[in-house]
């Protein structure tokens, strides 16, 4: 029995040999560029590799060290705060903007473009501009607060505020993406469904809550994974705007990874961080997929 089923499997494989041969170059590139580095990273996380001194195998030492590393825990906390802080508002704002701009009114293309524009700007350029916006003494952000009669804030200079300031900028940058993706999702909802809901007595809010949002759930899920993965890996804006400070309040896992690897030449330890990050992201994706599946069932 077993040999027969394996024989059929081989037969099917051989039928597709041509296809596999066509795939081989792509597979080769995937092995080289994705799998090999990933496996190497996990391997490195079990050593004290520095690329300078002789490398020794240290088992799970790096992971044990992570458990008691206060700074890493702070970075995990910061990253989680950043990820939640970026993901949720980005999706909510993106959805609201998409719903608002899905209706026909003058200049809606202009509005869509304006909302999407931040996505197209260079991260570094945007970061430099935001540093100016957040400037505590002459920056427009505080100018705005003062004009509202509110006290000015030391946005990037305060350990309590800096991460929030980075989150605001990230939301500004990302919600255009969310909007575009939601707009595409909205196109897939037939107009008749809205009409049916209106006839069933649903108001605008009820339609949003009971019809639009649930019908966009697969889009929402996709966006959520994209945003979470992206936010977990935030680096550029922090590198430019705060350098992880003040007081490590904006140090994220990837930032610390970079610092540990290239600043302190502890590549093994950094690899352990990166492995942990990898599994956290994997976990989020799996949990998200499970929730999604259950919703569809």
């Amino acid at each position: 029995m077993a040999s027969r089923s394996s024989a059929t499997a081989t037969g099917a494989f051989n039928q597709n040999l041509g296809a596999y041969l066509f795939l081989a170059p792509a597979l080769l590139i995937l092995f080289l560029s994705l799998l090999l580095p990933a496996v190497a990273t996990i391997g490195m996380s079990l050593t004290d590799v520095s690329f300078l001194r002789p490398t020794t195998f240290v088992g799970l030492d790096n992971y044990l060290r992570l458990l008691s590393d206060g700074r890493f825990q702070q970075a995990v906390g910061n990253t989680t705060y950043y990820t939640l802080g970026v993901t949720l508002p980005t999706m909510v704002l993106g959805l609201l903007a998409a719903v608002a701009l899905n209706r026909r009114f003058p200049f809606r293309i202009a509005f869509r473009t304006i909302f999407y524009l931040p996505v197209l700007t260079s991260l570094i350029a945007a970061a430099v501009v935001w540093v100016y916006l957040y400037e505590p003494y002459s920056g427009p952000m505080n100018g705005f607060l003062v004009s509202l009669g509110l006290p000015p804030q030391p946005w990037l200079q305060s350990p309590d505020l800096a991460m929030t300031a980075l989150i605001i900028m990230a939301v500004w940058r990302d919600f255009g993406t969310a909007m575009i993706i939601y707009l595409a999702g909205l196109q897939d909802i037939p107009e008749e469904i809205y009409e049916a809901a209106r006839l069933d007595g649903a108001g605008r809010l009820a339609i949003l809550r009971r019809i639009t949002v649930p019908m966009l759930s697969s889009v929402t899920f996709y966006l959520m994974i994209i945003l979470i993965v992206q936010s977990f890996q935030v680096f550029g804006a922090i590198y430019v705007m705060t350098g992880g400070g003040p007081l490590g309040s904006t140090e994220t896992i990837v930032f610390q990874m970079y610092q540990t690897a290239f600043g302190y030449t502890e590549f093994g330890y950094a690899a352990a961080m990166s492995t942990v990050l990898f599994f956290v992201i994997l976990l989020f994706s799996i949990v998200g997929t499970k929730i999604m599946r259950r919703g569809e069932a």
Partner: protein
Amino acid sequence: MAELELSRVSKTYGAFNALRDVSLKIGDGEFAVFVGPSGCGKSTLLRLVAGLDPVSEGQIAIGGNDVTTRQAGQRPVAMVFQNYALYPHMSVYDNIAFPLQMERRSRQEIKQEVARAAQVVQLSTRLQDKPAKLSGGQRQRVAIARAIVRKPGIFLMDEPLSNLDAALRMEMRSELTQLHRRLGSTMVYVTHDQLEAMTMADRIVVLNGGKVEQVGAPMELYHNPANLFVAGFIGSPPMNFIAGVAGSIAGEAMLRVEAPGFGEVTVPYDGSAVRTGDKVTLGIRPEAVTLGDATDDSISFSIVPDIIERLGLHTIVHSESGGRPFTALFNGDPRLRPGEQIHVRVPRTQIYLFDQDGVGRSRQIAA
């Protein structure tokens, strides 16, 4: 339960007049069918009644109340859409319950109402399924149940059967008729299919180009079409039209018409002003044609069958006469062969007369 009254309703989209000055009254409990070719404005009319689109001019009253400015959902109507418009992410139960949930009815009450409606449409066992798991007919029933629970004064149905296959369509037709009888509520039903209109309607509203062409009971429309459009639209196969020129009046309410290919034909007419020399049109229903030679009260002519469709109960003959197609429908299965000329006759009383504006001028036939 409510009656529907439209007064001088118009709808324009930019420069396009979708509906022009429609006035109409549909009685309480009536099954009214809006019928017409696509683009005639029948669906627009339904949407105006539903409140999905605002009227450009005129008033809509339901049950004696002016609802012209009321939003959709605040009118005592429920609608069944062509594509069902079920909420795909909700179970059958939630689909049916949705209108009640919007009314903030109690959980218990909703449960009862949904169960009742589900029983009416025979879906009690499928309440937990998502619409994607249902067949087309079952989805249609969910949509109907969702309409039923609202207990609307008027049911609006927008081509509800057009997505079903022929057999199912026939079945649903009778189910809808039964449902109407059972609920006793007013129904406004839109279709482009005159067969549906004829079989289901208490009253048919024929629309064309945004205008009401004729309103009446199915047999009334069949026997006394008000104009060329209605005459051609109602009945299948459609009425044959023959161009002619009015001659002199012969006897009491008879008109002589010179029709090329038919010679001089004397037909009954309603006595209104048709002057000699006017261009007129004669109408002959295919089923009015029988085999045989002329008698006193019928005319006769010959046709050469091109295509013969044998349906057992009927035989339909397509021919050409004077460059225009002519269709005849005979009972049973007469021995005919394509290309072999046959003699046929038509009773004078069954020849329709339309004046140069296409308005029917025949004598009225009691339906």
